[in-house]
């Protein structure tokens, strides 16, 4: 077992360098812990399922130009009909919004019409009887809409539909005992009762920012087709035909009628593109944090190598004396490793406190979650190992200082 006391005495003579390395380790630990935590949170968000079968899915934004709002209903019907008949198309719907689109309808739901406040919020999707098949959403209870239940409606006049399909998350929230199917709820803060005729396994909301996290998987499907200035089309292609359909559908739509704008940006997107654009900043943030962590660890390691090399150079004579007095190469090596470990421990203790403090600040500033101590622990281990790794080369060099060095003048 090594004597720690002589190391501490020696460190006292190098206060500045010791403090600098410890400080650097502390700051690096604080930033790396929080950065890793942010990365993990962002990756968790990106991995959230939408409930859709996302392969072979295409979305199109359509806005009518110079058409009276009342007349758009028949145009949408004609569009959907034409799309469904195209080769390579499995099914298609017109819908007001879709998961991760970023913009849609949000409303309150309650089980008691006299209750003053809604029990929860939910996304509203207005669809027809082809929606479940097109989106690839799984019905886990009850039934789909029938085609005779679908009605056309002015968006300003939407009242809760007599039959609705809800997601399992919403059903369980409203009826925790699992008895939602067939029950009546009140959507839109209206007094119009809606009966739950079906429950789907999962269907996410159109938003992906943190404010919608509490009602992310709450969704209501209502058998309405909205009239008005614009709509979204969701199209499921036959397997392997997505690329062909992506080209043929806009062409067919323009051929059918030119009184429309399909925006050049975000007008025609496969669902893969929708997903990657929705989570672009989350993914970017994770990459940025990752790069910051790597560079930071590299710089800290370089700093340790630099200062330790300096110390080794400075102490060649002392090392020579110790060697001459019988210290083995191993003794010298472990001297420097232990010295680094002591500095490292000092650094990580301060760093762990800094990491927690920094997280508390981030929590108050950005409504982030609390840092799990596991990250701090992982960071502590990583930095101690990094320190040992960085010090290895200069320490090896020190251990090779020959005893004869003691006889030379400095």
């Amino acid at each position, binding site marked *: 077992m090594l004597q720690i006391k002589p190391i501490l005495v020696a460190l006292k003579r190098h206060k*500045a*360098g010791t403090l*600098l*390395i410890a*400080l*650097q380790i502390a*700051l*690096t630990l*604080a*930033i790396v812990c*929080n*950065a890793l935590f*942010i990365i993990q949170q962002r990756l968790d968000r990106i991995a959230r399922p939408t409930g859709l079968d996302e392969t072979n899915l295409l979305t199109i934004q359509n*806005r009518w*130009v*110079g058409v009276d709002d009342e007349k758009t209903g028949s145009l949408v019907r004609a569009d959907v009909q034409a799309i469904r008949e195209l080769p390579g198309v499995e099914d298609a719907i017109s819908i007001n919004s879709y998961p991760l689109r970023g913009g849609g309808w949000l409303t*309150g739901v309650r089980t008691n019409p006299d209750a*003053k*406040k*809604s029990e929860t*919020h939910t996304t509203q999707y207005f669809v027809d009887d082809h929606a479940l098949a097109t989106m690839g959403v799984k019905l886990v209870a009850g039934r789909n809409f029938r085609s005779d239940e679908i009605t056309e409606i002015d968006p*300003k*006049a*939407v*009242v809760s539909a007599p039959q609705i399909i809800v997601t399992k998350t919403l059903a369980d929230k409203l009826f925790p005992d699992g008895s939602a199917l067939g029950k009546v709820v009140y959507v*839109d*803060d*209206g007094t119009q009762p809606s009966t739950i005729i079906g429950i789907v396994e999962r269907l996410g909301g159109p938003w992906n920012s943190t404010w919608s996290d509490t009602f992310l998987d709450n969704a209501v499907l209502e058998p309405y087709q909205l009239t008005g*200035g614009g709509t979204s089309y969701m199209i499921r292609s036959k397997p392997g035909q997505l690329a062909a359909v992506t080209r043929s559908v806009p062409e067919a739509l323009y051929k059918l009628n*030119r*009184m429309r*704008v399909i925006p050049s940006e975000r007008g025609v997107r496969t669902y893969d593109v929708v997903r990657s654009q929705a989570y*672009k*900043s989350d*993914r*970017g*943030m994770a*990459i*940025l*944090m990752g790069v*910051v962590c790597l*560079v*930071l660890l590299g*710089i*800290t390691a*370089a*700093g340790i*190598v*630099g*200062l330790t*090399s*300096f110390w080794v*150079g*400075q102490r060649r004579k002392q090392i020579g004396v110790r060697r001459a007095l019988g210290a083995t190469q191993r003794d010298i090596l472990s001297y420097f490793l232990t010295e680094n470990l002591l500095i490292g421990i000092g650094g990580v203790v301060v760093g762990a406190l800094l990491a927690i403090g*920094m997280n508390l600040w*981030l929590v108050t*500033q*950005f409504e982030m979650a609390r840092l799990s101590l596991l990250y701090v622990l992982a960071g502590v281990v990583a930095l101690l190992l990094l320190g040992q790794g960085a010090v290895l080369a200069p320490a090896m060099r020190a251990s090779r200082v020959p005893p004869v060095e003691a006889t030379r*003048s*400095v």
Partner: protein
Amino acid sequence: MSGMFIHNLQLGIFSLRRNPLLTALMIMSIGFGVAASMVTFAVFRVVSGDPIPQKSSQLFVPQIDNRGPQYNRNGEPPGALNYTDALALMRAHKADRQTLLYPVSMSVMPEEAHRMPFKAAGYATYGDFFTMFDVPFQYGSPWGAAEDASREAVVVISRDLNQKLFAGENSVGRRITLDDRQYRIAGVTDHWDPKPRFYDMFNGRAYAEPAQVYIPFTYAMDQQIETYGNNNCGSGGKRGDDRESWLRGECVWISPWVELDSASKVEAYRQFLNGYAEDQRRAGRFSWAPNNRLRDVHQWLDFQHAVPPESRISLSLSVGFLVICLVNTIGLLLAKFMRRAPEIGVRRALGASRADIYGQFLVEAAMVGVAGGVLGLLLTGLGMLGVGMVFEPQIARLAHLDLSLVALTLLVAIVATVLAAFYPTWRAAQVQPAWQLKSN
């Protein structure tokens, strides 16, 4: 003096070349630290700027709580007004200037039959809008109060739209068709696109494409032109069954702005808002104490979180990053300078003063700073290409490496390195000539 400086430069170059590894480590450390800070700062500069510096303390958003404590969010009134309250503020006319606005999206029908119609986004607002927000005009002028009152079909178009439709000629007085209505062109704005778009924060269009058309609010209401933006009915409000009941209801969708150029007027306007809310309570519409806000541009941008959290997190992290790089540089410089203690001892013994030692080592540090700055500049340039990965494309487009940022990068690198060098230099200057000579 300059001879000494050049001598120091030569000494510095010699010394830096003697320890290429240590020198390279320092330069990289400074380079990475500065680049990380500069890239994130470039974005932060874009998103946190004052969009209308000359007037940001005279323009205010009145907010009226029409939800009550049971339904409002965190006790704050909603970020827009319903039609009733918006109209009441305009009628009261208690500010020097006032306007309402909501976004519209209209189809422009070019006169030539072969050209395709296209969409143009803009705002329905009052004539005061242009004066309040200092909108520059290329041709013509805003419409006046008379056009507001008579609900006339006039339009102000953007320079871009004018270019597209009339090849940039003076089009004042000509007519254009938007949707199925004809408008007389009153004016053409010059380039004007404040970022963030403070006046339309309610609709999340802080970094949207520039507006192309502006039409009178009164005419738009007459023609029942729908809002292209948010319509927030809250969890207690009724959406209404038709347009009439929606208008009379409590859904908020109109952004109001008032101009007040003195503290006393601001106070008077607050009084007026409270009086109005009190009246509504007496009339039975509100059942709660007045809960209003009157925020100026800065407070409004803060309230609406104009600066995306990504930007603030990454800026804070990269400042921390720069600090670590500097701590690292202090350590490396210390090692580098102290390794030369014998040389310093000799120089001191030969008559060099402490000031000479300071000069020599600070110049050496400044050279590391310059090299770090140049590396930092390259890395910043690279980093700017990656900005689009983290931030919205609208924001990424605005962040760029301009001359002021280049200067700032170099300045930060040099100043930071010289600051970092003070402690190691001080230590170097403490080296005693006699002691060093003796042990040598």
